[in-house]
């Protein structure tokens, strides 16, 4: 009985993930901003701030290798936030109400939305890695790449949970700038541009306590040096903690919806 219920719930999750995948195939233009924005920032910031590696404190001479994990996570953030915007559209058009009256537990609906965002985060990541390797980003090794991709997927889920919480709160696509700005701030108030010891003022203090810094450093390690468990586990713990916190927020929104 329990296994039949579980199978039904997995089918719902699968259907929601397939719906999101269909959107990529049927409206490929919709994926372009999520791919283009981090790519432009990656290439642009490399060209603009490339000489920062001459400063003492950088452990690499290749700014593109230092920057690419930021862009990977930024791409996941944009894609995840887009899940929130799409949910707001579904709420505005009444489609989400139909999902809510279906005999499906609400956490299962949330899981479908979030897993689809994790999968979609791989689209900008693949494009960015191709661009990055073409312009000389260091090969991070199989382990380094696997860690980076895993963290990109978790951050895609974190961004989606944030977007879902806001979509359920505001029930309007007008909240889109807030969804994107939240992720923008989370990712960039880290060691995105320079190592911690080179950050100045408030950003140094914020980056030190921002859990996204640990995620970024774990994703970065393979691109700028060797991979170690000591540099990996803080990133995994921070990513899991953020996912848990934002999941609680989104689930609260789910429970309150329609009451």
């Amino acid at each position, binding site marked *: 009985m329990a296994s039949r219920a579980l199978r039904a719930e997995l089918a719902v999750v699968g259907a929601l993930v397939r719906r999101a995948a269909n959107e990529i195939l049927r409206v490929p233009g919709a994926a372009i901003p999520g791919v283009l924005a981090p790519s432009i920032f990656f290439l642009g910031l490399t060209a*603009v*701030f490339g000489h*920062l590696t001459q400063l003492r404190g950088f452990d690499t001479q290749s700014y593109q290798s230092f920057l690419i994990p930021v862009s990977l996570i930024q791409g996941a953030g944009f894609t995840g936030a887009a899940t929130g915007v799409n949910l707001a559209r579904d709420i505005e058009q009444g489609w989400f109400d139909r999902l809510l009256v279906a005999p499906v537990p609400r956490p299962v609906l949330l899981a479908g939305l979030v897993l689809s965002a994790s999968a979609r985060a791989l689209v900008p990541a693949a494009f960015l890695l191709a661009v990055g390797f073409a312009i000389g980003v260091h090969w991070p090794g199989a382990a380094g790449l696997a860690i980076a991709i895993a963290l990109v997927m978790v951050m895609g889920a974190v961004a989606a949970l944030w977007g879902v919480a806001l979509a359920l709160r505001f029930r309007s696509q007008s909240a889109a*700038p807030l969804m994107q700005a939240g992720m*923008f701030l989370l990712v960039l108030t880290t060691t995105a*541009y320079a190592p911690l010891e080179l950050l100045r003022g408030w950003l140094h203090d914020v980056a030190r306590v921002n859990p996204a810094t640990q995620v970024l450093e774990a994703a970065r390690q393979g691109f700028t040096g060797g991979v170690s468990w000591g540099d990996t586990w803080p990133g995994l713990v921070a990513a899991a903690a953020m996912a848990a916190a934002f999941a609680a927020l989104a689930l609260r929104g789910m429970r309150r919806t329609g009451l």
Partner: protein
Amino acid sequence: MIAALRANARVVAALGARSVKQTFRRPQLMAPIIVFPSLLLAVQVGGAGSAVDLPGFPRVHGFLDFMLAGAMIQSTLLAGNSGGIALAVDIEMGFADRLLVAPISRFAIVLGRLAGTAALGVFAALWYVAVGLVFGARIEEGVPGVLVVVALVSLSAVAFGGLGAAVALRTGRASVVQGLFPLVFVILFLSSAFFPANLMLEPAASVARYNPLSFVVEGVRDPIISALGAHALAKAAAGLAIVGAASFALSALALRHRLRTGGA
């Protein structure tokens, strides 16, 4: 003649005020103009602030002083893009058609939108001057420097706004103008908006040296980080003239095309 001029000035003022109100009422229009550039400014100043220690970096009081001009011009570019989107929405909703059949000059319709963009440029310049002063920047040229900055930023808003208006008039589709958004960042990254051109990597450094946007940014930056110089001001004027002439010519052509074909 004077009565006609006065009537057109009233149209420009009314449409300009409508455009400003529209921007302040819609967070999705306001966010790209003020919120995102302010966040980016804060993060870049904290993140890349050590760049002032690089050999070859101009002598500045702080990295924030250097970055203010880039943030202002970023805002004006995005304001121009947002103005173009709003004009395209007016075309899609039929509001522009109603204006076109009114007994007013057609150019007053476009100028009204650009007047609104210029007002947003003034707002952006004052916003960043205030932000800069609050967070410890110094305007080396004082009040006259601020006036020059405000004038250059509002003129650049008009010049860049004309490009957004031209695309809106030619295509009549907000989604197309919205699609130019990433291009704004390409142009910015290929200029000296965020870093001195001599310290950028090639080929971006070479492009930045001849990009008219760099001339404008350096003209805005000059009174902030040093004494106002005629050379920088002349270069900014030349940059604005190039962009302005191109944007007005393209707007006029697009408007003529729309009037001749009805936007088909």
